[in-house]
């Protein structure tokens, strides 16, 4: 079974703090993704990475950065957390199986910025 783990299920941070969210996958997948999930808005892509040290902006990259130094690990960084970044953050990974890129999701980190 593919396993995607995230460093914390719940996190509370103060405005202005630097926040690191970590994601690890154990299936040697090339592609990794960070989404944020808000009610009524579904999942919105923040960044994705298709290889070590390679990254692409998603739909809502403002206020975030990412790091991928090893294939299995993809980190999301909030340089200076703000209250509008309070959300559920989901990490996912994928690799082609028969041309199909099924995404496997982690359990999510619920971040509250006060």
């Amino acid at each position, binding site marked *: 079974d593919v396993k995607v783990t995230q460093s914390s299920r719940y996190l509370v941070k103060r405005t202005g703090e630097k926040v690191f969210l970590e994601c690890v996958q154990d299936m040697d997948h090339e592609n990794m993704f960070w989404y944020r999930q808000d009610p009524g808005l*579904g*999942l*919105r*892509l923040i960044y994705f990475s298709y290889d070590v040290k390679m990254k*692409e902006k998603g739909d809502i990259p403002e206020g975030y950065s990412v790091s991928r130094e090893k294939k299995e690990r993809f980190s999301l960084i909030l340089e200076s957390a703000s209250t509008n970044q309070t959300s559920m953050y989901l990490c996912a990974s994928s690799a082609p199986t028969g041309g*199909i890129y099924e*995404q496997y999701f982690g359990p*999510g980190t619920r971040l509250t910025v006060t």
Partner: protein
Amino acid sequence: QQPVQSPQAVILREGEDAVINCSSSKALYSVHWYRQKHGEAPVFLMILLKGGEQKGHDKISASFNEKKQQSSLYLTASQLSYSGTYFCGTVNDNNAGNMLTFGGGTRLMVKP
């Protein structure tokens, strides 16, 4: 631009049928369907590719109308275990590969 899902929420009795629609303004290469149960991660259900056939798994099936850029998910004789939020994710025709754009989700509740 996100695909639009409808309805936003639906409540069913066990055994009833439901249809969830996903509509995009862009030409699509594929449509993915995921289900997320409360407090859990989204789980892949199925993918429909451009030029492909209608897919099905048990009593859940889906169709993809390429000309209309629409997909529909059909849940037949719903079970309590079908409850959750369903998301469609689309891959645009000019971006075939990895990037999915998800809809806002449809909350499905199945009552006994």
